[in-house]
Structure formats: structure tokens, C-alpha cells
């Protein structure tokens, strides 16, 4: 057994156990925390496979941003989880079907490598082994797949704008701060120095 293999077993064992805990723990916040543990360990496996860029992007995007939003929602929603658990059997068949499809697809991918190992080298864009994988990814993404890449970005942007439009409410009568107006405010506009004669007042 070599050191990378040892680490692979450590990471994958923790990942599988925490994935099981995600669906079996009673407290939804614990579920999300186990999901995060699972993500971090998958990042470790990516790292062992030599894909250090993917590993760190997985942590930055999924753990650092997406899972934080999950945690937010789970912490703030007062969902009756016992009630949700009640109707679980109803959804079980769909879950089993989706799981089976995923399993078959994974077997196809893994089987492809096992049956014909040269399939990896027959990819459309041969990757130069001399450069590190950040550069290699960039060279492929921004040359051959630039339109697909930009298209994916545009789809995400549109989705984001959609979410903002759906939740945006313009409340009437709310006082808002306008930093520009504040900064441009001068003493002359805001204050008036008046000489008041005693006993008369301003209007008098």
C-alpha cells in the first residue's frame, strides 16, 4: 500500500460515511454539516487524482458559497421535518429510479475506462502533460469551448436576474439612504443663519 492509496481510503471512507449521515441524521443542520464534510473529502480525492484546481474550486464554490446558502435556508426555515418524513415512502420509488440511473451511468463511465483504457487519450483535445492543470483547463475552456463556457455563464446570469426580479419589492414610503446626495449636501443648502430679534421670533 502506498501513501496516496492510504489517503484515498481515508478520504473515501469519510466521504461515504458522511454521505450516509446526510440522509440519516435527524437534525437538518447536522445533515448540511455532514454534506460539507462530504464535499471537503471529495475535494481531497480530487487532490489525490492530481486535479488540484478542481479540488480547490469545489471547496470555494460548493463549500464556501452554495453550502452556506443551504445552511442559511435550513437554519431559518421552520419546517416541520417530522411531517416531511411521514410522506417519505411516497417519494421512495422516484428516488430509487434516479439512484439506479445514476448508478448505471457511473458504471458505464468506469466500465469504459476498464474495458478500453485508451479511451482517455482519444479525447478531442489532447492535454499536454507538461503544463499544470490550471493552465491546461484555461487553455481548453477559453479556446475550444469558449462559446459553450460563455453560454453557461449567460444562463447562470439570466437565472440570477430572474431570482432577483421575482423577489424584488418596491415598498412605497421607505426612507432610503442616497450616498451621492449626502456627499453633495452643503452647509448652505441645509442650514440658514438667521438673526432673531428678542421678543419677536422668526415670523413675528
Amino acid at each position, binding site marked *: *500500500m*502506498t*501513501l496516496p*492509496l*492510504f489517503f484515498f481510503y481515508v478520504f473515501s471512507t469519510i466521504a461515504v460515511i458522511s454521505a450516509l449521515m446526510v440522509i440519516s441524521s435527524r*437534525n437538518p*443542520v*447536522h445533515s448540511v*454539516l455532514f454534506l*460539507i464534510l462530504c464535499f471537503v473529502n471529495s475535494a481531497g480525492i480530487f487532490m489525490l487524482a492530481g486535479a*488540484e*484546481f478542481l479540488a*480547490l*474550486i469545489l*471547496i*470555494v464554490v460548493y*463549500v*464556501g*458559497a452554495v453550502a*452556506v446558502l443551504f*445552511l*442559511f435556508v435550513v*437554519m*431559518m426555515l421552520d419546517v416541520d421535518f417530522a411531517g416531511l418524513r411521514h410522506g417519505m415512502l411516497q417519494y421512495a420509488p422516484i428516488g430509487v429510479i434516479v439512484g439506479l440511473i445514476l448508478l448505471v451511468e457511473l458504471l458505464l463511465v468506469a466500465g469504459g475506462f476498464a474495458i478500453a483504457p485508451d479511451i482517455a487519450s482519444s479525447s478531442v483535445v489532447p492535454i499536454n502533460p507538461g503544463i*499544470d492543470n*490550471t*493552465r491546461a483547463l484555461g487553455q481548453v475552456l477559453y479556446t475550444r469551448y469558449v462559446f459553450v463556457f460563455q453560454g453557461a455563464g449567460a444562463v447562470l446570469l439570466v437565472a440570477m436576474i430572474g431570482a432577483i426580479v421575482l423577489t424584488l419589492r418596491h415598498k412605497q414610503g421607505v426612507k432610503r*439612504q442616497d*450616498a451621492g446626495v449626502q456627499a453633495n449636501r452643503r452647509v448652505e443648502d441645509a442650514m440658514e443663519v438667521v438673526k432673531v430679534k428678542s421678543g419677536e421670533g422668526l415670523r413675528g
Partner: protein
Amino acid sequence: MDFVVTALDYLLGIPLFGWGTQVGFIYKGLLFLVALLILTAYILLADRKIWAAVQIRRGPNVVGPFGLLQSFADLLKFVFKEPVIPAGADKIVFLLAPFITALLSLSAWVVIPIDAGWALANINVGILYIFAISSLGVYGVIMGGWASNSKYPFLGALRSAAQMVSYEVSIGFVIITVLLCVGSLNLSDIVIAQREMGLATSLGVPWLTFLNWFWLPLFPMFVIFLISARAETNRPPFDLPEAESELVAGFMVEYSSTPYLLFMLGEYIAIIMMCAMTTILFLGGWTSPIDLPPFNWVPGAVWFLLKVCAVFFMFAMVKAFVPRYRYDQLMRIGWKTFLPLSLVSVIVLAFILQLTGWGWHGGVA
């Protein structure tokens, strides 16, 4: 059992006794850790002293000469007190949160190059590693706030999480501008690029190294980074998660003794980390400001430490004299000012670099 030998050699190898092939990682790591903790103790003291000096007070001056041992006395005080865990708290998550905070802020230091070749791990994606680790820092805060099962910590945690996530975006874009100029994600490469190219080199006076550093060509990004770093580490004027006038102490309300100490430690180490990041990205890391004899006799590690301390002095001064922001104001400058500014400058800079051919190109071209 091949891997046990490899692992032992990597962790505990001592060339001194003829066993193993390299200096063990554990020794280097422990040395680094002790140095970092002592630095943190004195940075904490400096913070309090500077704050006191601005307010014409004396600050801590009782324990040891000039209060030099104050941080250690505080450490003992925290450790010997009884940790109180609220009855309604989720015990495991409650105790896990400060550990995660301290562990993450310490682990980011692994890739920081103190001097040429002095990084514990000189990895190719160093800056991405730091970015990933600091994006995890928000979990300590959220977990602590949620597990306390109390109102103020929860509100503090929500605020803090929103704040850290928002400012991470602009910090990310600022880092991208630096990476565009360097063409490498390796932290040592970023420093070397600042030594080898820049204004001084193009003017024909390469010994004026401080003109080469990125603070000059990327000055707006430098300012954005300094301000975002404060928001990211929950420092005043952006210390809303622990705004004592509204939230008592934010997410730390229910913490006492050693868990509280770990939160404090994690926070201060993250602050020093941000100072080190500023030094590496914009102030030339370990390179001396003027590459002439009296200056370049000083070891690079000393320059690095001096720069970190100088940046921290700015952090401390800002804490002392800038009033706290309101929450909506904080979000406004994050999303409406810094994000568009840094995004536009990434695009503009990319165009400029493409048209002029300037940049270090990863040291290849």
C-alpha cells in the same frame, strides 16, 4: 508497510542522526506554529496599545515591562476559567465551531512564503488554497451562532455570514487582477514577478524595487483589498457581527474560557493572514524595498515581518478612528461599489495586458 516508512520520513525525518532523507515536516510546522502564536500575542498587544495611544490612554501596562506579558496572562486566564455551555446548546457543534475557526485560520499559513523558498508547502495553486480556506472561515461563525441556541448569537452569525460571503466576491476579483499580471497561482511566483518587472524596471532603475511592486500599477485594487480585508475579518469599522451596542457580542455571546480564546485566536490569526496576503500581493513579499547594499543585507524574512507589521498598523489605526458602519451601508459598498469596480477593472486590465503585452506570463515569456 511501505507507506509508513514514507510517511515517517516525511513527518519525522532527521538528517542530523542519519535517519530519513529530509527535515521532518513536524519540526518545521511546530517551529512555524510557535513563531506564529508568539507573533499573534504581540500583535494583539500592539493592537490594544495603538488603540489606547489614539485615545490618549496607556493601554495594558501592568503585566511585565510595558505590559509585554499581557497576552500570556490573558491566555492563562482564559484557559483556567470554567467553560460554560448553555443548556439548550447543541454541544458538539457548539464546541466544534471555535476549533474550526482556529484550525482553518492556522492552516492557511502553510502556503505563505516568508522568504525565498521558506513556505511550508510551495504548491502551485497557493492563492486558490488560501481563498478556499478563508471561504470556509464563515462556518465557524455560523455554527457557533446557531449552536448557541440564543437570539443575539444567531443574529450575529447571520450578519457575519452575509458580510463575509459578500466581501469574498470583491476580494476574489482583486486577486484575479494580480493573477492576470503574474500569470501564475503560486505565491512565490507572485513575489518574484514583483521583483522582476514593473515601473522601476521599465524606467531602467531596477534597484528601486518598491516602484516595481503591484501597489503602484494596481493602486485602486490595493485600496479595495485593504477595505475588503477588514470586512472579511470582521474588523472595525465592519465589526457588525459583534457590534456590542446592538448584539452584545454577536456570535460569541455564549462562549467562555478556552472556546472563546480559540475564537479570538482564530480571528487575530486571520487578520495577520490578511496582512500577509496584502504584503505578498501588493507589497512585494520578502523583497527589500531598495535593492542596494544596506537594504538587501537584511534577510527577506525580516522585510516580510516588517511589512506585515506595517499593514497591521494600518488595520489598528482604522479600528481606532473610524466609526462603525451601519449594516445596509456595509452591504451597499460591498455590492454596489466594490463589486462593479473590481469587475470592471478585471476586464479593463485584461484588455490592457492583451494589447500591450505587459505582464510576467508565469515567468515563461
